[in-house]
């Protein structure tokens, strides 16, 4: 399944394709994705992470087409 990922700067990006997607096996969880991105301190990092714009437990199974993002700032306003 393909997951759209907006990864933080410190993530390992080798698994992210040019369009911003990561391929994961069916049944993979948010924690599996964090591992694939080599995110350190996963329990803490997951707090700053959303799946389809909601915060969820790390054990949550991802679905094809989900969007995973990390809170970040954009200057403006």
């Amino acid at each position, binding site marked *: 399944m393909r997951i759209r990922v*907006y*990864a*933080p*700067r410190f993530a390992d*990006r080798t698994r992210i394709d*040019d*369009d*911003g997607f990561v391929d994961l096996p069916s049944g993979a969880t948010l924690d599996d994705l964090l591992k694939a991105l080599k995110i350190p301190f996963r329990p803490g990092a997951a*707090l*700053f992470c*959303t799946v*389809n*714009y*909601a*915060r969820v437990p790390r054990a949550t199974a991802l679905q094809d087409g989900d*969007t995973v*993002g*990390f*809170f*970040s*700032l*954009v*200057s*403006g*306003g």
Partner: protein
Amino acid sequence: MMKGCMGKLLFVDLSTGAFTDRPVDEETYRRYLGGVGLAARLLYDEIPSGADPLGPDNVLGFMGGLLTGTGAVMCGRWMAVCKSPLTGGWGDANCGGTLSPAIKQCGYDGIFFKGIAPAPVTLVIDAKGPRLEDAASLWGKDALETEEILRRDFPGKKRPAIAAIGPAAEKLSLISGISNDGGRYAARSGVGAVMGSKRLKAVVLAGAKPISCADPRGVKDLSKRYADKVRRLRLPRLFTGRLLPFFGRAMGMKLVVPVDGMLLAAVLKKWGTNYNNTAGIVSGDSPILNWRGSVADFGRRRYRKLNPDRMRRRETRRYHCYACVIGCGALCDVRDLTGGAHSHKPEYETTAAFAGLLGNDDLQSIYVCNDICNRSGLDTISAGATIAMALECFENGILTKADTGGLELKWGDADAIVRLLKMMAAREGIGDVLADGTRRAAERIGRGAERFAVHAGGQEPAFHDSRADPMLGVAYAADPTPGRHTISSSQYYNPSHLWEFVPWAPRMTKPYAKSKEYEPGDVEAAKSAAYICYKQLADASGGCLFAMITGVQHWRLFDFLNRATGWERTAVDYMEAGRRMQTVRQLFNLRHGIDPRSIVLHPRMRGEPPLREGPLAGRSLPIEEMVRGYWTAMGWDETGRVPDAAARAALGLDAAAEDKS
């Protein structure tokens, strides 16, 4: 008749008291949509070349958005439009609040004023229709008090939407704006001075006409999908204001990564724009000490006093503009500081204007400055910038106590800053010299003061540093309303996802080195052109900048437009309408004698010389080359002039040329 629009405009001749309805045909809506786009085309014809911006020939317009009232979420913005007395060119100012739907509920897409009233008046539109009422008793009162009085005077079933000016605008301060809904401001371009010059104290709108929509269910569905995402977003409790500087540091790093702009909604819901108070200083986004300093001059001990968690303690309730689901505003209790009632909280721009820019870490004084500006009508951005210039002039002996009436001006002296701002609002003493912004003040002071007058084409830039974002520098230098931070930037473009809908918009889906943004070329030029065209569409529709930042894959502007109007147009076609609107704005400036090349950023804004400390150390912008690239990408020549065929096409004077453009 197409849906979404009201089909006509109201013209008020203040010199004679005459009212005229002017119908608008569908082809005109197709070409310019509404809002700023429609107004720019209209005022291109209506305002004669060389017209005095404060004279009877200038026309001041209040425009609603094409999507306002159709059920489209985040589309409640209204726009004041005119020839700007600050820049001498096209002027517009964008505001939230409640006025945009009220304009349309009165039966109009826009209300225009020409001439000058013989005595102060208020425009009232309600079930009895439009009329001018005597406003002599309101003249001299501040904008918030004026609104309170008018609200008592018009207590009907329908709560009126009210826009008003304060004493600074009455005294024709060229950096004054127009207040709405208790202190939301259309602040830029000197629109308040134009309203003051016409002796129009206020506008009271209490119409109840329905606003049509071609596909209400379709629009509602798009809005619901957007709102659901915003509502689901919640920051973790441990994401406090103390973490924002760390996020700011990441923002200023040398690698730019794709971000999902929608997640910013969670940040805005918690802190509003004040999230950038500290993050912006750390990232280099916030100019310090009149653009000559950095976080090295305003370090952690000082900037932490601006932690937005501190500001939340004064909030009494969140504030949403019409049709907004984010709610970045808030009302706050400042009775202990100002003696007045609750007021809108200071935004990031206001905080930056009176804090780091002036070396001031006294948060309470920021609330006082905010209140002075909201009541008098001074634009907080321009007022802060002008005080910064005065401080630096004083430091360099260009101004002395003899000039300031004995007031000693020092960086970070909150009491002196407040006193100087009050003098500006009242045009007293040195305040009269400063009340028209940096460019005019420098001309009046002389003695080399222009070295410290930070502006672009006469307008003070907002507090996002162009040295941190060259694309923002292009907007500061090349937009027909220069110095505006809301026009475009790479920070806005990257999360926009425009490329998913518009093939010619450059794709930004991969990380890249920040240094790439400083390299002039086709990609940077196309990014500027694309975002500026998109921005015109939003300003025509009444769209909010923050909705734009969340990304068009979420806030589906092109779909909203089709479903609200009944059109079946492509994103590319809409973007061409955006290009047309921007071209008309450019043509307005050319018609009024502004050479686009004459708008030059202050050297500090382009990094000449570069800063020696802080996150922006060593950075400078190849701004002239980048601006030329943008002009070319817009289809104009390398001097910013619009070729005749493109001009005729943009103005709708030549259908054949339009087909070829």
